[in-house]
């Protein structure tokens, strides 16, 4: 695609297959060309999508994905409903994978010292280096065929393998091995748990298999499914992104979580009367001492232990933020607690466990780097890791790597690890590769490319096979063959599937990694007669589930080390936490992940320092301020300040992922990298990195002029809490389960004041006639209880609807274009953070305030119940946006162009908008049209449309359901009839197409008092004084708000305390 002017490309995406444009200046209509194929591939129909089942390659979870292909490109990534991992959801990282493939900063081919080299030269150098022996492979966790091939190459060439990832799982793997002798880490199945307990793992967003966990969490929180609503207790020093969903937060002193877990295990064992083999271990536990070190009242732990002893539960271990010097003990304690609670085999699986392949530790990596620095490592191959960015500055990784004579780095050009002496080998994006994964023991998933490589790339598997061939290595697994006639050319042409012959190296002539994968599957999984048919089914479904392994009888190793509960760290420890979208920095080259506001802080394109209100006050800063954080001579700043009620006093928390200093991609250089502040330290048991290692000093930074402009950032979340507006209503979970009548929002909900005289006179409250919806009334139901605020919907919506990325300067002017605004309201304090997420989109009102004010009828109500938005009619008055009570509309202040390269990822079914045009959510009208066209000539769709919109399709927790409200038995209609369902600002009588399901809470509401503010009391007055005049209702609303404000200060003072005592009671 080198010659093409990409900027022009997107203008004509709606036309036949291969199309280009010429914009000439002569006075005629623009001349456009149609470029047909010379030879058209059989499966391609220009203009129609093709779908490929594949497997995400961005983290160890390896969720099944479905790639939507149009005209040679992958334009959308969604989850695969057949995949046991993820179950149809997709996270923001998987969805943004196209931005890796089309990134303008992707290197075009292999490079050395900034100069292009040929693959032949690069591979020759690599082969020579590998065959010279003593090569070392330092890379990500790998499973499946690549793991096997690496094993064979290592065995044949003497290559050493080190598999490590930042935020890795060596502590849990070591603890699992230590306690139960299992290779791998447990698989966590949240669905059956009544009590969910976590010690800091960000399991809903970044830890292990978040998409899978989210599906399970949603099931555990949906009382219709299991007859219960799970209660989530989070024990961690800082309310993490996952912690924002908790029902109770027990604030632990950083570094003491292991002690709390041991103490709980002891208490549960005492209550159950059985320690399940952990007697000797737990006899060494002093529960009171551990609780006191953690700063948690033992009585509260006792209440929690009673619940754990009584109900099925699940206990997650620690995460990055709680990873101290005893992280293995924390992991071990969580496993022991799961054991005494009886969770193995139900919610925690060791048989069908999570498979990570070879797991090395941080200590192994440090040892390797020391050897590099000493010059004893001759050949180092780095596989898609960024050690310079993810390891502490003190380790001087860059210098160590410079001392390696033969350095090869698999990278697509992003990240900091591309030293001058390295040969960079671009493997391409997983959207372009063949491969597979075995994320869970017994579940095999295929990775098939959704498009041809966009650059001159070669996957790790192909490189290894090529190296093996030229270095004449004997690779036994390459000899796996499959017999049978090929019906489909995808598998092979006329020859059988001879995959090479171990005894005759020339067999490699036929081998590429695709065939190696096929051979691996044939060898490991295929048992029938007709491989071709089986293989095609595998490719279509995306994977293969072997019979789930039997759950073993778990027995605890009686000889475990004495429990190390940890000791509380000083009050100015850096609490390092993983960024929800950027992970360890590996996805920082994808602009859409910086563009969507961080789910909790709302900040974009930056790194921030999080602190408690008291700490911020002590420093004299507020949310608009800046600080510099320093440790051991390294200064980080100026950082934006985020004041959070979920922070312990004194400490400061900084997210990962931002701030590449030497980043290969232009999008990676925003913000700052807190890893630089960390001290190199390892857990002595597992060798895991210690993230709670650094004491920092925080100083206020006063910026002015250009610096202020440069570092000024706004939180796109707007208000910190709901400001007494009834946005996200709640309901008391036990009442819901028991089927009692629930009052949504406890007085804060919708109050429509009815005037009997209006009804008596036969008049209507409606200003407009009721619109007709003869066949469809499209609706969306959004479950605000199971919504975890992960942000996948935002990223998916932006990708599907070609929503432009506007960048940091425009964000300072609040010109963010995303159609979905994921609101976050931090309602509570102390033990009950009560954080509420709301997905705010166009509500598709039947009585839409926007429609009446449009002078050119660019927006109107259509027969399907949509607020249609006709872009070419719009003249940009912005009246509609001003009149929208939901702030759902976005105005194009400029014609936002896509950054170079990204025109290719645009959805050809959706037009791009230009300056002066209003845009908003359309319920993915292009998808609705598509299914309607498919359904012709039937008038009514019969197919399942529950996950039709892009947001609903990817939502990992299945919280978004789309459908036709005119159909009595559609899922969306049934959800709308639920007592938990409400319309946003229902008193406005806009008759929305979007319905919300209330958040469920385990905190007993105070009767007659609004849960999140003083609104309820205020409203009582309003009813009395203004209730008789319907027209005054708006006025009454204002009075409510004013009274609420007065009440708010007082109310908030004792809010946390009140709820804390409530939590004790039940």
């Amino acid at each position, binding site marked *: 695609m080198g010659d*093409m*002017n990409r*900027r*022009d490309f997107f203008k004509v995406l*709606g036309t*036949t297959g*291969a199309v*280009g444009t010429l*914009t*000439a200046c002569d*006075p*005629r*209509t623009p*001349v456009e*060309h*149609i*470029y*047909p*194929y*010379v*030879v058209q591939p059989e*499966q391609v*129909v220009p*203009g*129609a999508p*093709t779908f490929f089942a594949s497997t995400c390659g961005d983290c160890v979870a390896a969720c099944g994905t479905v790639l939507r*292909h149009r005209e*040679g490109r992958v334009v959308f990534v969604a989850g695969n409903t057949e995949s046991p991992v993820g179950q149809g959801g997709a996270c923001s990282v998987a969805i943004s994978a196209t931005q890796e493939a089309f990134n303008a900063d992707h290197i075009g081919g292999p490079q050395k010292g900034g100069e292009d080299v040929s693959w032949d030269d690069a591979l020759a150098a690599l082969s020579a280096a590998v065959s010279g022996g003593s090569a070392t492979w330092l890379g990500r966790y790998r499973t499946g065929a690549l793991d096997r091939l690496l094993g064979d190459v290592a065995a044949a060439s003497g290559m050493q393998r080190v598999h490590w990832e930042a935020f890795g799982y060596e502590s849990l793997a070591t603890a699992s091995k230590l306690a139960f002798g299992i290779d791998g880490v447990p698989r966590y199945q949240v669905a059956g748990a009544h009590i969910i307990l976590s010690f800091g793992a960000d399991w809903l967003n970044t830890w292990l298999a978040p998409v899978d966990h989210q599906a399970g969490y949603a099931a555990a929180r949906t009382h219709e499914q299991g007859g219960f609503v799970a209660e989530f207790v989070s024990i961690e020093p800082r309310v993490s992104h996952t912690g924002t969903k908790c029902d109770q937060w027990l604030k632990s002193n950083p570094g003491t979580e292991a002690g709390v877990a041991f103490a709980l295990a002891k208490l549960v064992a005492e209550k159950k009367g059985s320690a399940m083999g952990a007697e000797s271990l737990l006899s060494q536990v002093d529960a009171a001492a551990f609780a006191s070190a953690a700063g948690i009242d033992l009585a509260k732990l006792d209440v929690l232990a009673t619940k754990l002893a009584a109900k099925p539960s699940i206990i997650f271990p620690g995460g990055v933020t709680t990873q101290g010097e005893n992280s293995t003990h924390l992991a071990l304690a969580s496993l022991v607690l799961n054991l005494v609670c009886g969770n193995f085999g139900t919610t925690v699986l060791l048989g069908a466990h999570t498979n990570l392949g070879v797991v090395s530790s941080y200590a192994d990596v440090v040892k390797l780097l020391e050897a590099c620095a000493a010059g004893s490592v001759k050949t180092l191959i780095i596989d898609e890791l960024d050690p310079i960015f993810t390891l502490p500055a003190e380790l001087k990784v860059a210098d160590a790597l410079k001392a390696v004579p033969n350095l090869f780095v698999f990278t697509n050009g992003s990240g900091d690890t591309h030293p001058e002496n390295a040969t960079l080998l671009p493997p391409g994006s997983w959207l372009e590769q063949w491969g597979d994964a075995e994320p869970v023991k017994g579940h095999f998933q295929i990775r098939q*490319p959704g*498009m041809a490589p966009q650059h001159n*790339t*070669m996957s790790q598997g*192909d490189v290894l096979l090529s190296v093996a061939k030229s270095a004449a290595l004997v690779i036994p697994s390459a000899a796996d063959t499959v017999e049978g006639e090929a019906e489909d*050319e*995808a*598998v092979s042409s006329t020859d059988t599937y001879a995959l090479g012959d171990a005894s005759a190296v020339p067999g490699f002539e036929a081998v*590429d990694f*695709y065939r190696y994968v096929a051979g691996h599957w044939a060898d490991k999984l295929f048992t029938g007669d007709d491989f071709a048919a089986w293989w095609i089914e595998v490719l279509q479904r995306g994977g293969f589930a072997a019979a789930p392994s039997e759950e073993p009888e778990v027995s605890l190793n009686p000889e475990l080390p004495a429990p190390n509960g940890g000791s509380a760290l000083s009050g100015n420890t850096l609490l390092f936490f993983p960024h929800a979208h950027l992970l360890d920095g590996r996805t920082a080259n994808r602009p859409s992940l910086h563009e969507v506001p961080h789910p909790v802080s709302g900040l974009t394109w930056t790194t921030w320092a999080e602190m408690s209100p008291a700490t911020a006050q002590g420093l004299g800063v507020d949310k608009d301020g800046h600080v510099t954080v320093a440790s051991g001579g390294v200064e980080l700043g100026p950082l934006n300040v985020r004041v959070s009620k979920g922070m312990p006093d004194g400490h400061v928390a900084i997210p990962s992922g931002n701030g590449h200093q030497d980043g290969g991609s232009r999008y990676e250089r925003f913000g700052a990298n807190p890893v630089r502040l960390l001290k190199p330290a390892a857990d002595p048991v597992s060798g895991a990195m210690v993230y709670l290692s650094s004491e920092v000093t925080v100083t206020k930074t006063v910026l002015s002029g250009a610096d202020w402009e440069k570092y000024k950032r706004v939180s796109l979340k707007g208000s910190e809490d709901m400001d007494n507006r009834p946005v996200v209503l709640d309901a008391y979970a036990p009442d819901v389960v028991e089927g009692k009548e629930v009052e949504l929002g406890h007085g804060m909900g919708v109050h429509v004041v009815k005037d009997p005289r209006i009804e008596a006179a036969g008049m209507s409250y409606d200003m407009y006639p009721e619109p007709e919806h003869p*066949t469809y009334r499209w609706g969306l139901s959004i479950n605000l209880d199971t919504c975890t605020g992960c942000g996948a919907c935002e990223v998916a919506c932006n990708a599907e609807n070609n929503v432009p990325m*506007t*960048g940091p*300067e*425009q964000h300072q002017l609040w010109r963010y274009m995303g159609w979905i605004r994921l609101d976050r309201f931090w309602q509570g304090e102390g033990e009950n953070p009560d954080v509420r997420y709301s997905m705010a989109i166009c509500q598709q009102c039947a009585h839409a305030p926007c429609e009446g004010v449009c002078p050119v009828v660019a927006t*109107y109500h*259509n027969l*399907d119940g949509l607020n*249609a938005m*006709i*872009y*070419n*009619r719009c003249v940009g008055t912005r009246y509609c946006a001003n009149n929208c009570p939901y702030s759902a509309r976005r105005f194009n202040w*400029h014609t*936002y*162009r896509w950054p*170079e390269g990204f025109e290719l990822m645009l959805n050809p*079914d959706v037009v*791009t908008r*230009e*300056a002066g045009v209003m845009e908003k959510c359309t319920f993915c009208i292009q998808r609705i049209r598509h299914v309607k066209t498919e359904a012709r000539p039937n*008038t009514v769709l019969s197919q399942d449309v529950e996950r039709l919109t892009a947001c609903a399709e990817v939502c990992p927790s299945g919280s978004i359901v789309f459908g036709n409200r005119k159909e009595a038995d559609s899922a969306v209609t049934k959800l709308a009839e639920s007592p938990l369902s409400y319309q946003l600002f229902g008193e406005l009588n806009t008759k929305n197409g979007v319905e919300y399901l209330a958040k469920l809470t385990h905190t007993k509401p105070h009767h007659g008092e609004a849960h999140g503010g003083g609104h309820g009391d205020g409203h009582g007055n309003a009813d009395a004084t203004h209730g008789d005049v319907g027209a005054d209702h708006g006025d009454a609303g204002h009075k409510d708000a004013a009274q609420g404000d007065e009440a708010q200060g007082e109310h908030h003072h004792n809010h946390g305390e009140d709820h804390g005592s409530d939590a004790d009671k039940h």
Partner: protein
Amino acid sequence: MPSATGTPRVWAVILLGAVSFASKCENIDVTSNEDSFPIETHSLLPPEYPDDVETRISVGSVVQPVDPQPIEFKHDVHASSVEDGGLGMSCEYCHSNARKSKHAGVPPTQTCVGCHSMIDPSGREGLVQLDTYIKESGENYGQPIPWVKVHDIPDFVYFNHSRHVKSGVECTDCHADMSKHGVAVRAPDMTMLMGWCLECHAEHPSVDANYGADADLRRAELKDCYTCHQ
């Protein structure tokens, strides 16, 4: 490089890359952030339209000629009936995606080769032009044929061929009888303006045939802006 060789799956060669694009009068970009976020100046006009009003009005004219086609393709020879001296080919022989996709499709060169490899081009200009694309010695061999678009539907309009063809709308209803025309031109009676579309959406007999008692409702739906607009 090794890839899935011998596996001609969907990713065939994408021919776009072979084409160089020209863009003579693009607006100047006001870029921010080192080119990361290009922002264009505010312009209510599409960039390809000139600013002066008279020329703009003439641009609106529907009778203007289109650029010459790279090959003088004669629709009449292919599509008119055998009795009339033609080949009697169906439209969908070449525009084979009309029933499957939003685009009717222009045939791949492969389709032309099917017959033309056996036809002597001597003395016929169109066939000599075609030969440059299909003979290995030809100067354009391996290149896609750069057909000039005759009708360009705006990007903000959603038009789907398959939906119309499957509903029983004949090709000739919109494209006239191409068996009577040679090289495709922009004909004055075929305007592709919105009112022209709506005439059919209001009256086309296929609506009654397909929807019977629901035809009136269907007609109302067909006049909904969102049927075609984005």
